[in-house]
């Protein structure tokens, strides 16, 4: 058995199932919830909020800035043209390129962090149900052992799902 899950028509029903599973001794990390929209008002939807994404975006920005500085200054130094005594590395104008690459670094770092932490691209979980796209909310437990399977099914059933499936 890969998973047992219930499909709920309302977020309240899904919250109830989530609460019953926890009351039955299933840890939060073992419970999987999937929905077609974010449901942050509910406890099950407000898990996993902590993220280092903003810090990584700043790191990406710093990387972009450093890369831009070296791109512009090293390129200009590589060509020893006569600038009539003016500095060959023109930081005032290079600042525009530095700004753009700084922001691009922040954007790329953000997107890469999203991809990595949200596991995208990836395969659909084996117990993904297309009914989620019809507004149903999936609450389930992946790979429960034989002893827990009955407890999980009982907890899910007590919250009145539209359907319970084992896969």
């Amino acid at each position, binding site marked *: 058995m890969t998973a047992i899950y219930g499909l709920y*028509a*309302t977020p309240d029903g899904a919250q109830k199932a989530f609460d019953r599973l926890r009351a039955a001794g299933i840890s939060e990390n073992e419970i*999987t*919830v*999937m*929905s*077609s*929209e*974010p*449901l*942050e*008002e509910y406890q*099950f*939807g*407000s*898990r*996993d*909020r902590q*993220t280092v*994404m*903003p810090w990584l*975006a700043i790191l990406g920005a710093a990387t972009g800035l450093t890369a831009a500085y070296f791109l*512009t200054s*090293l*390129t*200009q130094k*590589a*060509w020893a*043209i006569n600038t009539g005594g003016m500095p060959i590395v*023109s930081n005032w*104008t*290079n600042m*525009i*390129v530095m*700004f*753009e*690459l700084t*922001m*691009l670094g*922040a*954007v790329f770092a*953000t*997107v890469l*962090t*999203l991809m990595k*932490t*949200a*596991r*995208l*691209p*990836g*395969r*659909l*979980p084996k117990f*993904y149900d*297309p009914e*989620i*796209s*019809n*507004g149903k909310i999936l609450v389930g437990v992946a790979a429960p052992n034989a002893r827990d399977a009955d407890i999980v099914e009982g907890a899910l059933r007590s919250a009145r799902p539209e359907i319970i499936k084992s896969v």
Partner: protein
Amino acid sequence: MNLETDNRLTEDLLRPVLHTTRRFYVAVAVFSSIVLCGIATWGYQIYNGMGVTGDNWPVFWGFHETNFVFWIGISHAGTLISAILRIVNATWRRPVTRCAEVITAFALMIGALFPLVHLGRPWLAWWLIPYPSERGIWPNYRSPLVWDFFAINTYLLSSLLFLILPALPDFALIRDRTTGWRNRVYGFLSLGWHGTPKQWHRLESAMHIMALAIIPIAISVHTIVSFDFSMAVVPMWHSTIFGPYFVAGAIFSGIAALIIVMALLRKLLHLEAYLLPLHFQNLGKLMLTMSLLWGYFVFNERLTTWYGNSPHEMNVFWSTQNGKYAPLFWTMVICNFVIPFPLLTIKRLRSITATVIASCGVVVGMWLERFLIIVPSLSRKATSYSWGAYTPQWPEIVILCSSFAAMALLYLLFSKFIPIISIWELKVGQHPQMKAAAEVQDAEAAGELI
């Protein structure tokens, strides 16, 4: 939101994606034909040289550069407005954001094409890419054209990501509701999205950070486009006001384009239940603000030039006030200020039709504004022996028309393959807490109506 409403909303917004009407094919055929004409004309221009255009000494920048600045300006509609509305958490933004972001992506692509169109030998465009050179060409980071390269590409990449990332859940929705090739294509595009709370949080965090990053990028892009002009010592170009003046004009024209697109989508895709009069009213008020700001910048620019009374600048100044270019200048003022002001100020007049009329005026007016910035200054340079005239030729006019057709075609195809309104964001807007917040915001907005 109950399941029935939820499913009706999904059905409504997926209908244009899943069902194709004959009207769609006709529209695609018409716009494709115009675009093909434009491409053929560009080929004609490449084959015969730039002599077939109206560009001639001393006016080497004409319609193509006007189109470049115009389309980059139009691109400010989308991602910038969407990012601002996202950051201030304007609840009414939800049906508008994607419509706007699409404009940015395509307007930037079309705009960025015009410097290539203007090149006599476009196959050498890659020389502009500033990598440490092995070809004996010194990459000049002091050149505004190189700044353009960085700014436009940064904005384009960021805007595409800003557009595509929130579309992942909608791709997943289509994946689950289709079979066959559509299921495979949308399955690939959705990248395995399955909607766990972690995925939702990460997506929303990413969108928030990107919104914060994109606002300065968008402002920098049009400031840098303005540097193409203001860094040159040409009469009425070398001005410190050009940066903010261009940004204000860009947002102004962008909002106008967005209103026109929204009105067309509302009518053609039957989205009356989602693109509400409220959206047009709010965008109309934003456009009115930008119209006033634009008028303020024009007044500032003109007054300081007139007061300074520099002979070189006054030649250009009078050519636009009562000379050769005066009809275009006053048409621009009528389109950008005289028409929109009453239509958008008087609450009774601020209907969908009126905002669309005002927007059409603004699009025409802003194209004229770009033309009037470029051509009169080049045709009246500092020394009178370098005076000349510019008359557009048919290839430039055909290419201009085809750029509009290209925008329509790309938009049409996009709305065929991707829901033009973000379904999941609209559903979030229906949550009880969000609805309550929206009602408060609407009441506040109603209270401040003129």
